[in-house]
């Protein structure tokens, strides 16, 4: 049986543990998957930048021994766009929560996808605002509770993968914190992809989301991911959330196109 292994080499050696995350939180699992993906690709720590916005997921970069930047709420992709254009040789990984990426940062998300800029965007989707106390997010399902939806959410939820696809991302994948090995591989493919890649990770928030919606503890929430998702091969049983690679197409990335433009511009007066 395959199992995941912690990789201490990529963690910052001192000061920053224990983490800020609650017991049972799934963000650490996503962090572990990112580290294992980086390790599997044998990437130099010096050539990796991890950029985040605000929220529980925004705290992720502090723990890893890369070039790390915790920016403002919703704008991580815009900061990353500038960095990638200045340093095309670096792998820029952007980690965001669902509110960060799709509410306050929704505009930057669709435009980063439209540009197809060579960034890897990992969206930790726990369907709630964790750090601020369980408010509704743009991915909270209709009928679910949040501290600002005490009578149930009445707004439709965003489908992150569909938005990414419709906006032009070259690579879109989805997995969950239950499927940790699959997640490692999907993130590795996302990093390797030339173009904008989005990996949505359904993640348990037992404290913010779980308690309000009687989902049970973290283990129960992980079991729910196991029982309610299906691999993206063949016929999809109704009511199941599809996992795996959802989009993988070859369209020129922004940096690649800009480098061509630089060459052409020099020939013109």
């Amino acid at each position: 049986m395959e199992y995941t292994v912690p990789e201490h080499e990529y963690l910052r050696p001192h000061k920053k543990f224990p983490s800020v995350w609650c017991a049972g939180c799934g963000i650490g699992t996503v962090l572990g998957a990112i580290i294992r993906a980086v390790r599997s690709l044998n990437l130099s720590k010096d050539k990796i930048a991890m950029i985040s916005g605000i929220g529980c997921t925004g705290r992720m970069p502090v723990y890893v021994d890369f070039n790390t930047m915790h920016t403002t709420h919703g704008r991580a992709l815009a900061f990353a766009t500038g960095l990638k254009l200045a340093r095309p040789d670096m792998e820029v990984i952007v980690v965001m929560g669902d509110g960060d990426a799709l509410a306050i940062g929704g505009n930057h998300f669709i435009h980063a996808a439209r540009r197809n800029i060579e960034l890897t965007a990992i969206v930790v989707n726990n369907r709630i605002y964790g750090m601020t106390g369980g408010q509704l997010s743009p991915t909270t399902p209709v009928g679910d509770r949040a501290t600002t939806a005490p009578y149930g959410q009445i707004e439709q939820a965003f489908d992150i993968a569909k938005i990414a696809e419709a906006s032009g991302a070259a690579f879109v994948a989805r997995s969950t914190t239950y499927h940790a090995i699959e997640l490692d591989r999907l993130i590795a493919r996302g990093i390797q992809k030339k173009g904008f890649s989005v990996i949505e990770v359904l993640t348990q928030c037992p404290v913010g989301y779980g308690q309000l919606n009687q989902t049970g503890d973290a283990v129960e929430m992980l079991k729910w991911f196991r029982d309610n998702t299906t691999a993206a091969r063949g016929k999809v049983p109704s009511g199941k959330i599809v996992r795996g690679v959802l989009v993988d197409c070859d369209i020129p990335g922004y940096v690649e196109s800009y480098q061509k433009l630089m060459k052409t511009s020099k020939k013109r007066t």
Partner: protein
Amino acid sequence: MSNSTTTARRRGKARLMQGNLAIAEGAIAGGLGFFASYPITPANEIATFLSRALPKRGGVFIQMEDEIASLSAVIGASIGGLKAATATSGPGFSLMQESIGYAAAVEIPCVIIDVQRAGPSTGMPGGPAQGDVMQSRWGTHGDHPIIVLCPSSVREAYELTIHAFNLSEQYRTPVILLTDEVLARMSETVEMPLPQVKVIGRLHPEVPPEWYFPYDNAEGDVPPLVSFGHGYRYHITGLFHDKSGFPTSRPDEIDAWQERLFLKIDGNVEQIARIEEEEMEDAEMVIVAYGSTARSARHAMRQARKANKRVGLVRLVTIWPFHDAAIERVARSAKRIVVPEMNRGQILREVERASRGKTDVVGVNRADGEMVTPAQIMAALEV
């Protein structure tokens, strides 16, 4: 235009330049490597010029989805090692405020060009104003230091743009170049050659990565900044941080950092704040002006001198940090200080504060999208 300037232009000793284009050319001369912006009147010519000029020089131009994204990308490019800038006007400048605070807190150099137009709100996109003076100082939340420069001629706009990049790198701070619609869109004859300004780069650390602390107070007012990807892996956060860049809530660490953050600007006011004085030797009445309003002020001063009135001009080239000592000196000898501005009195209050009640301070204000005229200023000079 006089015959002599026309002749100078014909001989190639002068050029007719537009203010916005002087800024764009100044940015390139200052080492600009990355420019991101969003279309807005009256700043557009800067982006139009740079979208053509930058790729040829190996630089990056990108039109972002809004002004928030523009300044965010600029900060990202700056930590990637490029000198980076954006240009905007009132509404866009309002959107940039959060990122200005971020750049100030994490001490990443960047240049923000704000071509002021009449406001608030959409206001008058084609009308000049100086209504963003206080926003440029305090627009973002929380206490922070800032440097703001105000050119009043096209030639000076070119020079100050280079200077803005230099100050930004030298002090690890966002620098705002505050111009206005009049200066941005007028064309005037600029003597050639253009001013030569020494270009200052980033101070790199001399220590190996394991000894490097990006916010180390022991390194002086401005610790060296190393860009990403050079083997110095460290953390940047808008949270209060310790010397290594990690979040902290310890008051002793926060106090020491804040103290240095302010000291690096406020402790260097004499070096940073440029003031120009004209006809001040015997001046009894003094006009304190900045930006394109200083042009009307100079005209008014000359008219007054012709009428044998002892009028002088103090022009604020740097408005923030505010040069309190220079204004207090003026206040000690002047019978009256007149402060013309295209707003309802923003620098006026600073002049009143710095004067410490030693003289009469009178404002000449309008915020209707028109320039303050020399006649208005002369009227305020009448005793």
